[in-house]
């Protein structure tokens, strides 16, 4: 295997880690439910980039693409259901602020 292709892995990994940190920070710090979903989307993007990069480096781009397509389908379904849940919460509580959602508090 050529070093050129393997050389792609480290810079891409660095940016994948940083993209994951941005998404994770958004999910953990925000108090808005829609923004939390946007953070989750950024985490999905990081995983997509990881799969594509590994597929390119290992010369298994076709397999990586099949996995990415599966991931995109899962991503869409998760987002659709999550948006439905967020709208339900919003209509019940009149707010998207996580601090005002106390219905599930034990």
């Amino acid at each position, binding site marked *: 295997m050529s070093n050129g292709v*393997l050389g*792609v892995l*480290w*810079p*891409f990994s*660095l*940016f994948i*880690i*940083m*993209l994951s*940190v*941005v*998404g994770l*920070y*958004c999910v953990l*710090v*925000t108090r*808005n439910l*829609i*923004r939390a979903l*946007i*953070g989750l*989307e*950024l985490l999905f*993007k990081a995983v*997509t*980039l990881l799969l*594509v990069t590994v*597929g*390119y*480096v*290992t*010369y*298994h*781009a*076709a*397999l*990586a*693409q*099949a*996995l*990415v*397509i*599966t991931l*995109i389908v*899962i*991503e*869409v*379904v*998760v*987002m*659709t*259901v999550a*948006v*439905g*849940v*967020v*709208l339900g919460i*919003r209509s019940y509580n009149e707010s*998207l602020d996580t601090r005002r959602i106390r219905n599930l508090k034990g």
Partner: protein
Amino acid sequence: MSVNIAILLSLLAASLWTVLTRSLLRSAIGLALTSAILTILMIRLDSSLAAVFELSVCTGLISVLFISTISLTHPLTRKEILAHMRERRARFWFLPFLLIALGVILSLLKIKPPIDLPAPEAVKEARNVLWSLRQVDVMGQIIVLLTGVFGVVILFKERVKK
């Protein structure tokens, strides 16, 4: 390689703007931009079919989903916006510095992962992989889609008035 680095930097900048911008609508647009930049990277990394999916589904459909959701919520009042801005600044100012520090530390480390590369794949077409090697994945996708459809139907079901 330098082109890839430039695209990666713009991807990170777009994602940072998505998280840091105050307006939710701008956030959704930033997410679409991040997705579009990721599509360019995917095309450069020989994943054209997945890139088309990413562009049509993630850039298009999910952005529409987010923008419709945002339009269904009511906007904040001026007083709420000012309070919200102050609070957000206190919580998010740390993120750019964290990223810069992380980037510097990781680029200094220059880890070379010990990878045993597998033999190159026999099937070169993503379509053939999906339909012949990964048939169970397709079944799983159908089940996940049906789960999503039923989930949304249940969530938006009209309540029967007694």
